[in-house]
């Protein structure tokens, strides 16, 4: 390593989006201190502006030749840049949905925005992390921000409880992850992904080393599986989804999945790709468990946020199935799935958050009765989202499931594909149940639901994208496939 710890100004440009975002965080934090509550709106707009500039900076780096800087611990490649664009973009959408909710629930505080930006920064670091420590650091920045965000509704005991649970269990997961990193480091002598990869690829590696590497691998996978919310490390998901303020649930259920996927790619594909035979069985078990538990338990839920939590678990199962295949197109399908999932989830929570705008949480499934009569447009968006999540063509959710299953079948796991399809059918039931409530049941309350213009606009775009991208999926598919 000749360029050890040599900082060049050029290499700073490679990390420009992160650097810019970090500076913005500091500036917004300071500005917010001096704002009177009358001008607090400024914080929101500054946050959106910072995220937008960060996204544009990332966008400009697409196509930049693959560069590794900061002594092999930070990578810039197309996957990193594209993911960063998606992360900032979907965070911005989430923020639009959030603003009004925060006002209604008196959570509108400067910290909220700063914490979101910090979480975004953490995710960006995860996406670009090229050593175990960078990745871990990104993960911790993200997690700590999320814990705090959940607890921001500090006078709602259920929120505080959720934050605490998430914090404790997250700490355990982080511990497991660190333990796994230490094992890998102990056996390979490095924390750099490229070094680990070289070590694992070395054909002369002896079986003792392989076993230890294998154990380290188990810990790493479990650490990430916890973040993704895969069964059996999913226990926190429903409680946190339900307990957190809806705006935070929306945020934590969507954007971080992209970052977690990137981390999976970095560690398992880039780093330990040669160990695929060892981790694919583990992934297969985790994904089948997630798909089945997620689909079945969701049926029993009466709270829509809990239901979506289990639905997420089942989606995570599908995403992980893409990794089982062990081929680039399989990983591509997983990336496609995660991007589609974020798109759908944002719209779903968008509708939920609009319904919650009245100052209390309307999060029972029965609250959706007769929605089509009171607010036909929101009901239609929800209908699209639910059909898409259930995997009905021509909505985008169909193609994401389809491409995963296609990869799984062509990799020879036909039984697995059949099981996945069966559970997908079961899961269709609870999506359809919501549609039934919205369209065929009478509302027991008679109130029209209103939302500010910006939310309506973004929600409409978001909903129609699910249909439009579903009609022309090849563009997004090509992007996803080209990232690896």
């Amino acid at each position, binding site marked *: 390593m000749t360029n050890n710890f040599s900082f060049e100004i050029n290499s700073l440009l490679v990390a420009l989006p992160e650097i810019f975002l970090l500076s913005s965080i500091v500036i917004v934090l300071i500005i917010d201190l001096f704002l009177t509550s009358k001008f607090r709106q400024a914080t929101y707009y500054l946050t959106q502006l910072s995220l937008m500039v960060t996204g544009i900076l990332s966008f400009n780096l697409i196509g930049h030749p693959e560069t590794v800087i900061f002594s092999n611990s930070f990578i810039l490649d197309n996957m990193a840049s594209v993911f960063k664009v998606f992360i900032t973009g979907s965070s911005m959408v989430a923020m639009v949905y959030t603003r009004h909710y925060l006002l209604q629930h008196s959570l509108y505080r400067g910290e909220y925005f700063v914490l979101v930006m910090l979480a975004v920064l953490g995710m960006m670091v995860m996406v670009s992390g090229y050593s175990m420590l960078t990745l871990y650091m990104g993960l911790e920045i993200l997690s700590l921000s999320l814990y705090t965000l959940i607890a921001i509704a500090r006078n709602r005991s259920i929120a505080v409880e959720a934050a605490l*649970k998430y914090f404790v269990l997250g700490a355990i997961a982080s511990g497991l992850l660190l333990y796994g990193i230490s094992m890998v480091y102990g056996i390979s002598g490095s924390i750099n992904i490229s070094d680990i990869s070289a070590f694992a690829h070395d054909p002369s590696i002896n079986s*003792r080393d392989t*076993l230890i590497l294998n154990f380290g691998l188990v810990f790493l996978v479990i650490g990430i599986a916890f973040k993704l919310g895969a069964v059996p490390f999913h*226990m926190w998901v429903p409680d946190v989804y339900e307990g957190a303020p809806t705006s935070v649930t929306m945020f934590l259920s969507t954007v971080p999945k992209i970052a977690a996927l990137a981390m999976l790619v970095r560690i398992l594909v880039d780093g330990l790709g040669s160990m695929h035979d060892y981790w694919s069985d583990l992934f297969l078990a985790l994904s089948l468990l997630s798909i089945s538990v997620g689909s079945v338990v969701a*049926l*029993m839920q009466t709270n829509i946020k809990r239901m979506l939590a289990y639905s997420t678990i089942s989606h995570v199962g599908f995403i992980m199935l893409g990794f089982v295949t062990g081929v680039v197109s399989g990983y591509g399908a997983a990336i496609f799935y995660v991007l589609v999932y974020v798109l759908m989830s944002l719209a779903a929570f968008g509708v939920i958050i609009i319904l919650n705008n009245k100052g209390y949480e309307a999060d029972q499934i029965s609250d959706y009765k007769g929605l089509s009569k009171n607010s036909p447009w929101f009901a239609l968006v929800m209908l699209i989202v639910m059909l898409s999540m259930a995997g009905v063509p021509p909505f985008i959710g169909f193609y994401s499931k389809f491409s995963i299953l296609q990869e799984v079948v062509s990799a020879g796991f036909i039984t697995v594909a059949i099981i996945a399809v069966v559970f997908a059918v079961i899961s269709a039931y609870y999506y359809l149940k919501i549609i039934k409530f919205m369209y065929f049941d009478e509302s027991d309350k008679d109130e029209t639901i209103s939302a500010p213009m910006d939310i309506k606009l973004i929600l409409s775009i978001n909903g129609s994208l699910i249909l439009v991208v579903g009609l022309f999926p090849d563009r997004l598919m090509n992007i996803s496939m080209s990232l690896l």
Partner: protein
Amino acid sequence: MTLDNVYLTIALSPLLGAIIAGFFGGMLGRKVTHTITIFGVLVSTVFSMYVFNIHVLEGGDIFNNNIYTWMQVGGLNLSVGFLVDNLTSVMLVVVSFVSLMVHIYTIGYMDKDEGYTKFFSYISLFTFAMFMLVMSNNFMQLFFGWEAVGLVSYLLIGFWHHKESAVEANLKAFLVNRVGDFGFLLGISLILMYFGSLDYIEVFSNLGAVEGVTILDGSLVITVICILLFVGAMGKSAQVPLHVWLPGSMEGPTPISALIHAATMVTAGIFMVSRMSPMFELSDVALTVVMVIGAITALFMGLLGIVQNDIKRVVAYSTLSQLGYMTVALGVSAYSVAIFHLMTHAFFKALLFLAAGSVIVAMHHEQDIRNMGGLYKKMPITYITSLVGTLALIGFPGFAGFYSKDMIIEAVHFSSLPYSDLVYYAVVAGVFITAFYSLRMFFIVFHGKSRVDSHTAGHIKESATSITFPLIALAIPSVIIGYITIEPMLFTGWLDNSITVSSRHSSMAELSYIFDSAASMIPHALLTVPFWMMVLGIATAWLFSLHKTEWADAIKNRFHRTYYVLDSLYGFDRFNEIVFVNGVKKLGLLLWKVSDMVIIDKIVVNGSAKFVGFIGSIIRPIQTGYVYHYAFFMIFSLLIILTWTLFSGNNPQLNVEF
């Protein structure tokens, strides 16, 4: 204009008319709508004649080209394409001309109907589908055309959907045709399987490849294919026992009875078999089946015409019988004669239907001939054109039907297929029967005492010009078309480039040996059996329906068993009702009780819902909400995974010492 554009125009201009009439008919009004659709068909007719001129009269080359590639599956190329040769040209002229006449006729006939523009849209759509069918150069397009004409036919049979009988007839037509289509599709599948292509020319040029190849228990592949294709033809061309839908189709408005259920669609089966002549020629078994089925239809369906009292149903049974004649001609390898009869029949049968329609309009939609009589004075044009049509139908010397029917009978006479002598007697007897029922109806409707009720009687008058014009326009070819075209069509090679006749089947060769000229056939007819059968038929009809009407009742009572058999249409409908309808109903009930209620509802649907719910209720308590439970669960899972990793087959390092 290049030729493929001409063909495209022929096919697409009725489609355009149909689209405009269908979507904008309400907006444009009746007059504009019928002008547009009629103009569309007129364009097709003019171009069809142009095509006929190029191909048939000037001897142009066969046109075979793919216009549009629909899809490619593996090595299979499915295209939309045209094969236009002399056979196609003849069909184009017949279809477009009859369609044009029916379009014009519709103006008067449907005048007071609410669905006026819809009706025009349908018949134009039908014309388009029929063109695509006859111009197709591959089996796939043939099948699509086949289904499309069928679809429009169902739509039109049920056009008056407030009439329950129309809806039933519509359903019956649909179901019976499914049976035929099933055979047809199987035949096409076999062709694809053995030839790897659906293109006519490719298949025909590879026929040698399946020579002697057998399938199932030793039947020749080619025989199986031909019989399956013929099953399709039986459905569409209403051959026994798949004929039951055609009489029912008379529930539709009369113009479509003329266009679809007499002149064009029902002859699609005849056209198809002629088109496939290279294949049918290879299988004597298939040809024999075709011939026998045709003869049964020709004879027994004609008999039913005698006891019918609905004016349209008499014509319908005569159509069945004539289709039987065409099928017989196919069976004895006289394909060109079949097409010849198809053409003459299209003109005179359309004429008869339209004339019947004219009577029905005048009678205020009364269709029972027992309530008519003596109409000739009040409806002179309808009367004369009906007479022309009837004479053409029964084969009166000089009229169109005379030439074509005579040729069929002679061709059967020369055939060497097994049972051909029996078939010969059947078709000769058919002549007597045809003459009998046709003239019976003619006499009862137009002559004798008027039995019209006094209220209607005052209103009867000749129909409007839009109705009488097509009658006259169709009456002309009904007289002369046979005389003009018999020689070129049958003997001097109009259809030679479309039809293959094996040298083993000598009917056509022997026919040309005895054929002298069209004119000389007329005096010669006086010496033939069929002619005297016809005269006998006319005389009998006159005797029973005009001279001694009471004899008819006497005979009816004397032979009441025979009458019962005929009146109940040989029991085909009863049989279908008892065996298929009730049988399927019972089977359905059984399946519903067993499979639906027990297996699906109780076990699969409710069972799986309960099962899933049960699993869910087991898993849910794990979600206690206590953080230490969760943490324990995580660590426990970790331990299981580690154990599994340690002991799984992927780890041969188990024996490593630490």
